[in-house]
């Protein structure tokens, strides 16, 4: 199926037959083939075709429409999400879409993931990675057939990212061969797990294992929580929804209080550790293996959840910026498109460049994950530290930047960006959650920092030895030869990927060295290891951010090298790569000036190169967002529709708001009595 407008525009709207001239003119002359870029993003033309096929099936089902989402209460959103999930599963059964298939992923994308039971799949995946073969054989089919509904219960009211701090206990009772799972305090109540509040029948509970009187740390236990007959909470279980949130209203994040709940010994997941019937504890893997399910989720959410939110926000904001006209650039001209204002380009193009950069970054991480995961499941943990560090750091960085980018896009739409009908508030409230879920970002940056410091110290231990060659690939640059000064002499020099990648490497290495130096100085001055660490965490975070920026610049430029056979696309993406790298340099200019690596004159050159890129990106901006190929239904935005008829949609949609269709009880009760005075006098 071709990427023609008919595919993208919502059917049934009166305007879909015509294009707004202001957006049509943007698509008039194309400096590159948009369809080819879409294929690259999809990973091949056949994927694009399949995705569009799935999307058109999904969009033809009225039950799966997102249109009324903005008008719904929390209760209605929750019920609608369950209904949709149900409907998609029925479709999948009818059309033979298998579990984990591309079709189901595309289906989820086209309804913006607004589906119930999302954590059910994490429950299932965790059993697959932490469960023994027998356990998988027992539980996996039940999950697949939805005979049970699972949730993953880790965080507690008083405890989050720090696993060891969790208070929930699972004490082994050898007499009955059962675990007694218990919430000993108020702060131990499980809090936040999705699908827990109203849906799940089983929870995978992370708890401190106590057997033969010894504490063995965190382990995962399958705990039945609701009756399979009537869905009521089981004895000893107190359970409910945690109340209204910024978003994720379709998900019933819940609380769970366990009062000495007994489960059989077999319900502890035991691929990497087990408790024998007599209470003997046996370790079968490294302690890190417990983190594995977190790594899986962090990698998954980048492509499945976080990045599309930024791409959608860019699409909406850029399209609206060519429809919206405001003031004049010259007194004699008509009002100008706001995208023609330099300040508007400055707001929108860096997020657009990130939306592309992160596409390649997240895919690169996914490949690395698949590569290392197969080793790990076979018990070879050599790649786990790097995988853990990279996935933690990139999750933190991408979620931070995507959140800032979405908010920037929202605010760039002025007043209308505040209306939910723009779609932007929901994108923001959704993406911003990713900064704290699945590991709070500061904690994650610091996990990466520990890996960086360890790697750096390794390079110091045995200078010149073979060890250097064995540095993990993402930190191999720590031993690469380094320039003291940047060789750039003109603004054009700053458009060389080699030059700006090297500049980022230089700053990252300097900051990592610097943070190690601070740490060691404090230690030598007598501070104890842990206080010294705490007193240097701000610079560790700073160094880690520079490292991650370097990693993303490098991945983006390397990905572009592979596209040299498509010169038109290569050219347009290279401008984004240049903009991405330079934007980072200019916002962190102090770090580059600090040791004189860049001179003041060079910063001015970089700024000139950056400003000169904006008008080039300007003329491709609409095409670059078209290439993300979101349908109007999926964007669910009055401002961002493909045909550009933003104002008509906004007006028509607003009139359907319940505030306009359901009467005004406040009038009868309060406004009329207020106005009575006048009538009495008339």
């Amino acid at each position, binding site marked *: 199926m071709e990427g023609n407008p008919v595919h993208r525009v919502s059917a049934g709207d009166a305007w879909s037959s015509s294009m707004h001239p202001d957006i049509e003119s943007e698509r008039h002359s194309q400096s590159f083939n948009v369809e080819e870029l879409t294929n690259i993003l999809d990973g091949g033309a056949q994927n694009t075709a399949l995705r569009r096929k799935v999307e058109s099936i999904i969009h033809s089902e009225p039950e799966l429409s997102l249109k009324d989402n903005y008008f719904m209460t929390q209760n209605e959103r929750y019920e609608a999400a*369950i209904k949709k999930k149900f409907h998609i599963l029925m479709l999948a059964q009818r059309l033979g879409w298998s579990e984990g298939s591309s079709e189901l992923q595309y289906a989820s994308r086209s309804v913006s993931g607004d589906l119930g039971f999302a954590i059910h799949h994490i429950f299932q995946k965790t059993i697959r990675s932490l469960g023994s073969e027998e356990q998988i054989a027992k539980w996996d089919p039940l999950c697949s057939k939805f005979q049970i509904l699972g949730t993953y219960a880790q965080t507690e009211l008083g405890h989050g990212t720090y696993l060891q701090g969790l208070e929930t206990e699972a004490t082994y009772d050898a007499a009955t061969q059962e675990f007694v799972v218990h919430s000993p305090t108020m702060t131990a109540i499980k809090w936040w797990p999705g699908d827990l509040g109203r849906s799940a029948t089983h929870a995978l509970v992370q708890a401190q294992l106590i057997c033969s009187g010894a504490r063995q740390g965190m382990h995962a236990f399958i705990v039945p929580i609701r009756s399979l007959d009537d869905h009521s909470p089981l004895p000893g279980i107190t359970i409910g929804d945690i109340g209204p949130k910024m978003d994720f209203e379709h998900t019933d994040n819940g609380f769970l209080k366990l009062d000495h709940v007994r489960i059989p010994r077999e319900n502890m997941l035991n691929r990497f550790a087990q408790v024998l019937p007599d209470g003997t504890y046996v370790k079968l893997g490294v302690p890190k293996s417990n983190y594995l399910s977190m790594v899986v989720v962090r990698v998954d959410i980048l492509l499945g959840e976080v990045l599309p939110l930024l791409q959608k926000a860019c699409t909406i904001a850029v399209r609206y910026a060519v429809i919206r006209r405001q003031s004049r650039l010259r007194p004699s001209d008509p009002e100008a498109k706001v995208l023609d204002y330099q300040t508007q380009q400055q707001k929108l193009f860096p997020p657009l460049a990130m939306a592309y950069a992160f596409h390649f970054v997240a895919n690169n991480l996914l490949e690395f994950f698949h590569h290392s995961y197969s080793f790990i499941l076979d018990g070879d943990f050599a790649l786990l530290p790097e995988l853990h560090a990279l996935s933690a750091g990139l999750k933190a960085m991408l979620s931070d930047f995507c959140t800032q980018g979405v908010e920037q896009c929202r605010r760039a739409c002025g007043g209308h960006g505040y209306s939910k*009908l723009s779609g932007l508030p929901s994108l923001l409230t959704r993406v911003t959650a990713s900064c704290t879920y699945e590991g709070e970002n500061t904690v994650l940056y610091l996990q990466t920092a520990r890996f960086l410091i360890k790697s750096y110290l390794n390079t110091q231990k045995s200078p010149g030895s073979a060890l250097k060659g064995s540095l993990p690939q993402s930190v191999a640059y720590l031993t690469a030869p380094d320039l003291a000064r940047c060789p750039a002499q003109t603004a054009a020099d700053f458009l060389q990927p080699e030059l700006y990648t090297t500049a980022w490497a230089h700053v990252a290495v300097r900051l990592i060295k610097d943070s190690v130096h601070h740490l060691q100085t404090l230690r030598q001055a007598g501070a104890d290891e842990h206080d010294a660490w705490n007193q240097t965490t701000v610079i560790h975070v700073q160094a880690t951010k520079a490292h991650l920026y370097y990693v993303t610049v490098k991945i983006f430029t390397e990905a572009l090298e592979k596209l040299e056979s498509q010169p038109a696309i290569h050219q347009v993406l290279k401008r984004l790569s240049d903009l991405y790298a330079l934007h980072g340099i200019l916002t962190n200019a102090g770090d580059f000036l600090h040791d004189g690596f860049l001179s003041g004159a060079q910063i001015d050159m970089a700024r000139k190169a950056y400003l000169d890129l904006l008008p080039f990106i300007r003329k491709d901006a609409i095409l670059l967002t078209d290439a993300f190929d979101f349908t109007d239904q999926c964007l669910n935005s009055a401002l961002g529709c493909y045909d550009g008829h933003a104002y008509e949609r906004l007006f028509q949609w607003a009139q359907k708001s319940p505030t*306009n269709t359901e009467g005004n009880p*406040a009038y009868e*009760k309060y*406004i009329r009595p207020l*106005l009575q005075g006048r009538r009495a006098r008339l």
Partner: protein
Amino acid sequence: MNPDLQKERAGASFNPELLTNVLDGSPENTRRRREIENLILNDPDFQHENLNFLSRSQRYEVAVKKSAIMVQKMRKFGIADPAEIMWFKKLHLVNFVEPVGLNYSMFIPTLLNQGTTAQQEKWLHSSKGLEIIGTYAQTEMGHGTHLRGLETTATYDPETQEFILNSPTVTSIKWWPGGLGKTSNHAIVLAQLFTQGKCYGLHAFIVPIRELGTHKPLPGITVGDIGPKFGYDEMDNGYLKMDNYRIPRENMLMKHAQVKPDGTYVKPLNNKLTYGTMVFIRSFLVGESARSLSKACTIAVRYSAVRHQSEINPGEPEPQILDYQTQQYKLFPLLATAYAFQFVGAYMKETYLRINEDIGHGDLSELPELHALTAGLKAFTSWTTNTAIEACRMACGGHGYSHCSGLPNIYVTFTPTCTFEGDNTVMMLQTARFLMKSYDQVHSGKLVCGMVSYLNDLPSQRIQPQQVAVWPTMVDINSPDSLTEAYKLRAARLVEIAAKNLQTEVIHRKSKEVAWNLTSIDLVRASEAHCHYVVVKLFTEKVLQIQEKSIQAVLRRLCLLYSLYGISQNAGDFLQGSIMTESQITQVNGRIKELLTAIRPDAVALVDAFDFQDVTLGSVLGRYDGNVYENLFEWAKKSPLNKTEVHESYKHLKSLQSKL
């Protein structure tokens, strides 16, 4: 009381009550504010269910109810002074959002400023008594900050002596006015006036929109609510479309311009005074930034003292997260910013009142600078606050995402400040226009005064007779005065760069407007640097005025932190301009960390001094007593999803299981 908070409060180096008095302006102000707040807190008429559990339409209803009883309550309590009215509203409305609000803040003032005596006689009494409810309809769907672009027309018909109002296009539909959707029955509409075949630009008209008695839209009027928004659930922001809708000639506000019965247009006398309203609102918004950020800091700091997480030293109990350097680094610069903006807000208010008095005496000389300064500071403080509230929310981890934290609500209520009353980018460019003008003035040999007087000292101003200071000066990073100098140099440098780039573009492009657009990023940077300097300067000056030693000491630390943090975040500007050396930047970064440690023991007392009632914060995490977890659990149990033990959507699950 939570023992952690108790310990924090006992360990503070100063008495927060004294600092509260400084923020309020005097102990007497503090006393009276609390008195008014208590009237509301103890009044059963103002009690209602937690807004977080209500639907949008229920929240609107609560807000209308409160508006309705408010007028009589204020009369009963004898509250008439504008500042007291604000204290009153701030507490009882929590978010300061009221559907009837525009009747008082826009409809009546516009009537007073632009209506003739006869018009005031006709409308003022009934609108003050809420016998009619008015709103102010300016922005249109396709047009915002750029007023001249508005499309609504008012065409005079001399035969019937009426104006015919029309919304000729979709983009001309009035969009966003508060209280327009459901509440108001009159609107002051801004429209392009046409008479005798000619357009005379924007004028204001009083337009009845709903029938008295039935509240139904009048024939020719299409009116409604614009639908769900990010926040402001309580407010019925509305749309208004007019089709050949006729109003009598007398409904045009004619204090300044007039249309005679025969259609002759009489021009207004020069009226620069409408500036006044904008300046007032924008300077008020600077104070709003301070208040919103102070609330967010209060919640985040208290919660960080209650929350324990991970370990610094193995084997020891989990520390308060406020003991982590990264957490201090997230929050304390924001706390310092909140104080900085509190003082800037107070300064803006005083300056406005002073200059307003001058204007009353016919002296308009300070108005251009005040106008430029309020525009820039409105943008600078609201952008900073917008980001800072989000940072406070994220510093509370997952619980910050729950509405129980109160932070999402503070954010969504505050964030429109960046776009309303003048979009921030446009505001920054207005300030830049003033800076460029001042620069040109200095360049042509005339001295400038006020906040921009530093431009007189630019090294490039060779015409200056006196010896200019050597550039760079030696910055003392422990002296707020010296840091103010550093900010001044940065501002001067960035203003000069923007001015020179602008000149270069003008030479190349031959069109001033195009050149302006191609320099606008530099111009915004210059304005930001100017505003940053003003904030540092005002904060520094305020600290020196404080008599009480313990208060001065703690504020001095915050002032230093604010200044040094800004340098650290913008190190490139200070290095590139040779204002500071690399080793000084390293010292700045080191000093910031020392200040974090020094401020740590006073953090809770510093937020206590903002003196917000729990009701105003609307936060379980930010409770004064710190009993967070128990109340979080209680709060959640009241959630609508918990009304039944087994949710009705269980039926979908059942049917799913039977079909797979």
